[in-house]
């Protein structure tokens, strides 16, 4: 096993959370984002598809999903940047027995709103949305999604039948949009009680019906920094924008070498600005022409320009997965992405120039960012299970309790108001 190293971030430092197929890494830098120290690997040998960092209510809590093809998938957390972490005795994210479903993987960990510091969400495979209203101790499946009438007709894609994107509305807590491969986008406007397919205009080239109500293979969705109703979508073939919260979508693949790709991220501050990394075809799935190019739009997709400074433009046959691109919240923004070949790239100037932050990592599945202490606290809150590494957490409450929370009378997604 590799020697595990740790980082010791200070308040205001930037964190890069990097989930790989062989464990999780935590990188830290000061605000200049020129030099990075590396912590990890944590959960050595396990695929980590989802990571998150919770700074609400005084926490500095790292979360990650540890998948084991042998022992199943668990959520772990650490209040000291990975030095010690929880390993619950009973797994906390579990399907109800009567669902007939069993958890395969956790694809997304979403920290809830600032004013609801105990709320969190998880997107999982098989496709379902889980919620916690006690800071991640207990989780329950959102019934409106679990029992969605479309579920029997959903078909898994190459990555499995996963709910991989969770985007709460920033001002309307009743509303949230999620994305499933292969089912498409669904939005709730009633706190999670019901979910409507929101895929009008998004094509499904691999189906007999090219514009179905649902069944699209959405790879990623991101919300515009300034306009909460504006969304950007990277599809399995197709690049789209919605200006009405997902009700309708318009093709914005203008001047890109391929409209196939996985990640799409909006700039954290600049309106109408988003980033993608096109790859060539769903059979090849590598960067076109051997050039690693990030494409940026500054006008909501009317035009895209290649950002190449510092990126290899020869023999760069790279694949960047759907969750392997992220921005930080500084000005200028840091933009980061990781490749399946284990290279981690970053820009500390809105994408104008890039450099390799780390090489030789296992295949990178997710990249997330955080600012330490952003929530204003000192990180004194204790983890759901505060015992040291692999200590037992309080056992999950009975399913009856979880189910009660799930039904939650309009509190379903987002204890939501």
């Amino acid at each position, binding site marked *: 096993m590799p020697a595990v190293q740790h980082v010791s971030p200070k308040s205001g430092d930037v964190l890069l959370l990097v989930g790989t197929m062989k464990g999780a890494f935590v990188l830290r830098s000061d605000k200049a984002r020129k030099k990075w120290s590396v912590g990890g690997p944590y959960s050595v040998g396990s695929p980590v598809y989802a990571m998150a960092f919770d700074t609400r209510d005084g926490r500095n809590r790292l979360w990650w999903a540890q998948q084991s*093809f*042998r*022992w*199943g998938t668990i959520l772990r957390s650490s209040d000291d940047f990975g030095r010690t972490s929880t390993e619950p*005795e009973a797994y906390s994210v*579990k399907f*109800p*027995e009567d669902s*007939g*479903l069993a958890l395969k993987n956790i694809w997304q960990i979403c920290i809830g709103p600032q004013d609801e510091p105990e709320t969190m969400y998880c997107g999982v495979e098989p496709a379902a949305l889980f919620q916690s209203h006690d800071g991640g101790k207990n989780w329950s499946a959102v019934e409106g999604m679990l029992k969605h009438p479309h579920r029997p007709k959903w078909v898994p894609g190459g990555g499995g039948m996963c709910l991989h994107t969770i985007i709460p509305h920033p001002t309307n807590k009743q509303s949230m949009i999620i994305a499933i491969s292969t089912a498409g986008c669904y939005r709730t406007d009633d706190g999670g009680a019901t979910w409507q397919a929101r895929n009008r205009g998004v094509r499904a080239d691999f189906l007999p019906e090219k514009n179905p109500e649902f069944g699209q293979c959405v790879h990623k969705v991101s919300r515009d920094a300034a306009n909460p109703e504006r969304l950007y979508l990277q599809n399995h073939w197709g690049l789209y924008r919605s200006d009405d919260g997902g009700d309708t979508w318009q093709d914005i693949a203008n001047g890109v070498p391929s409209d196939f790709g996985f990640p799409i991220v909006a700039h954290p501050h600049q309106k109408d600005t988003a980033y993608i990394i096109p790859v060539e075809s769903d059979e090849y799935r590598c960067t076109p022409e051997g050039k690693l190019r990030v494409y940026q739009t500054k006008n909501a997709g009317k035009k895209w320009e290649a950002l190449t400074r510092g990126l290899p433009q020869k023999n760069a046959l790279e694949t960047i997965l759907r969750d392997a691109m992220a921005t930080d919240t500084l000005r200028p923004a840091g933009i980061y992405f990781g490749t399946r070949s284990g290279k981690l790239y970053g820009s500390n100037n809105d994408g104008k120039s890039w450099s390799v932050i780390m090489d030789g990592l296992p295949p990178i599945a997710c990249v997330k960012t955080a600012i330490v202490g952003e929530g204003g606290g000192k990180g004194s809150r204790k983890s759901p299970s505060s015992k040291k590494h692999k200590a037992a957490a309080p056992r999950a409450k009975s399913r009856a309790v979880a189910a009660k929370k799930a039904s939650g009378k309009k509190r379903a997604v987002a204890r939501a108001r």
Partner: protein
Amino acid sequence: MPVTVRIPSYLAEFAKGQTALVLETGARNVRGLLADLWKEYPALRDRVVDEQSEVRQHINIFVGEDAIRHASGLDTPVSANDEIMIVPAVSGG
């Protein structure tokens, strides 16, 4: 009746550090034996079986030298002094 359950070292930390667990059980099959095992060592349950109580795909359980996948699954009989092994499958990459 006494039955010995051998578990891999990874699971030992969830069983008081032991890899050989001697259970007094009245179970007649693997399903019943596992139910008794979860009572004694509850943290083993979610690691060995999923929400549907199915043995995880990459875990094998043997009664003596016989893999229960090739016998009667969780209904495979167990007898006094049997040795049960829970072992991770040789798989992955």
